[in-house]
């Protein structure tokens, strides 16, 4: 009896404390409100509604019909293309993710070692592909299957290949070509955030380091630069995870759609196929749901690993 009353009292107090704290910080909520209103209507609600659609049969004309796990059974047991898409997405993410992340950081740091004007020039050059974006026509020309095509003619002249290769239609090369173009565009948001972070590091740290006997730029990098870049490194990691797992557009525009033997078919391409071409929304949402779960898992692992080493 008494115990119950006491816990009730504590509950009540906690509630009052929460209310008081909320009132005290009322102006802060107001400050965050405009963003969160727009976020709620245009991001949160669409996402929250889309997730359960994965458990329905929805053709966009009739009201969605609940089908439980049936979409997922089909995906894993009857849809061979989906299994190819998983494999491609994983290969793609495992190769481009870590490499592009290391490139983002390493190149951003190397640029920072250059004198002022060169910093701007190199940052500009490296970020330019992300700005230029959709120049797939040019890449198609570079990868042209003709013996006189730019890539073919160079490789033939160097004696590396005997005859012309069909880079974008031969299933042996498609994924590699897509990966190359992805790498070319991979110095994106993460790279720029790290560049901006490097600009903000307090120079006093380097002075103190010099006094404490740091001799070369690698020691500076490990003992001063990296530890003070935690938040930016985490940002870049999340950005590279999303861009490497959600890639699909490049393959779709670069090669034919669907690509030969589905060699460039990723989960996003699969979702696009069902969502925007066949209008089987339930199935498309199921694919996205699966991708979301995979990304959530990878993200949590990376986040744990990083917060163990860095102050993020």
């Amino acid at each position, binding site marked *: 009896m008494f115990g119950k009353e006491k816990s009730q009292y504590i509950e009540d107090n906690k509630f009052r404390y929460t209310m008081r704290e909320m009132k005290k910080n009322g102006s802060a909520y107001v400050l965050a409100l405009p963003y969160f209103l727009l976020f709620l209507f245009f*991001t949160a609600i669409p996402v929250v509604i889309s997730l359960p*659609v994965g458990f329905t049969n929805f053709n966009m004309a009739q009201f969605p019909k609940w089908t439980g796990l049936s979409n997922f059974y089909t995906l894993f047991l009857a849809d061979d293309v989906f299994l190819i898409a998983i494999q491609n997405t994983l290969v793609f993410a495992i190769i481009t993710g870590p490499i592009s992340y290391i490139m983002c950081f390493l190149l951003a740091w190397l640029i920072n*070692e250059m004198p002022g004007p060169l910093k701007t020039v190199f940052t500009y050059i490296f970020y*330019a592909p992300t700005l230029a974006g959709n120049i797939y026509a040019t890449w198609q020309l*570079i990868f042209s299957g003709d013996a006189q095509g730019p890539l073919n003619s160079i490789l033939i002249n160097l004696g590396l290949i005997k005859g012309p290769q069909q880079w974008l239609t031969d299933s042996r090369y498609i994924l590699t070509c897509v990966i190359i173009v992805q790498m070319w565009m991979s110095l994106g948001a993460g790279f720029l955030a790290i560049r901006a972070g490097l600009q903000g590091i307090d*120079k006093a740290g380097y002075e103190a380091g*010099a006094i404490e006997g740091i001799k070369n*730029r690698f020691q*500076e990098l490990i003992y001063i630069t990296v530890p003070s870049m935690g938040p930016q490194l985490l940002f870049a990691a999340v950005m590279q995870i999303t861009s490497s797992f959600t890639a699909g557009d490049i393959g779709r525009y670069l090669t034919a759609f669907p690509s030969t033997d589905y060699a460039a078919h990723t989960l996003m391409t699969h979702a696009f196929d069902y969502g925007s071409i066949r209008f089987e929304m339930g199935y498309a949402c199921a694919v996205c749901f699966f991708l979301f779960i995979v990304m959530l898992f990878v993200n949590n692992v990376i986040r744990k690993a990083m917060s163990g080493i860095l102050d993020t």
Partner: protein
Amino acid sequence: MRLIKKRRMWGGSRGGDIMIFILLLLVGVFMLFPIYFSIIQSIKPVEELFLFPPKMYVQRPTMQSFEDMLKVAGGMDVPFSRYVFNSVFVSVVVTVAQLLLSSSAAYVLAKVKAPGIRAMNKIIEVALLFTSSVTYIVQYIVMAKMGLIDTYFALTLPYIATPMGLFLMRQFMGQIPESMIEAAKLDGASHLRICWQIVMPNVKPAWLTLMIFAFQGAWQITGYLFVYSEQLKPIPIVMQQIAASGLARAGVSYATVVVLMLPPMILFLILQSNVVETMAHSGLKD
């Protein structure tokens, strides 16, 4: 202090600098080549455009492709200037709104301790991972219910509150020392003032970078599905229509690509040199 001056700003030898420079130069060539090639293709006359193997230079540069592009654009129902206005208007609104709203919310998420803030942080972190191609249908329904379809609101509102913009600002603001904010609080400054007069000037590289992301994203808004009036369409969708209109216009498709990439590139050049400048100034405090 003198010790530092002698070994330049930071550690490392002259020889190392040169090696880094050469490495960056090589990567830079790989980065720039496809862009250079696109520009070259856009100023080639037709007979050079279909020459095989394609030349990496132009013999007789011409603006013919750009003129053709304008000719096609001029033949549309709505004057071309209207499309330009739409894109510029939408991009400016989205960029400014994103800067204002994301920064304000990021300050709260990074620096205010109050009930619910932790949950908001978690939500944003999860939302970052959901870049989906299937939410457009629900987005459409939401906007239709609010009566926003086929208005400028449909071109701007959905693109303002991006989780990425908020996350970027929050990560940078988290590095501002707590003492700085406590001091301002003791002086009686409100959250609004602390955010905009104390925190923001200290994360200038971050919001200059945010502006680049925001503009870049906004410039690509096509309004596909959300607007159907010709008067509301922005440039990218018109360019797609022009570029898709046949092989005879191969040069035109290169011209549209070049025209589309120019505005974000120019803005980036202005903002990025400012990012570097910020650093030069803070480096001066000896």
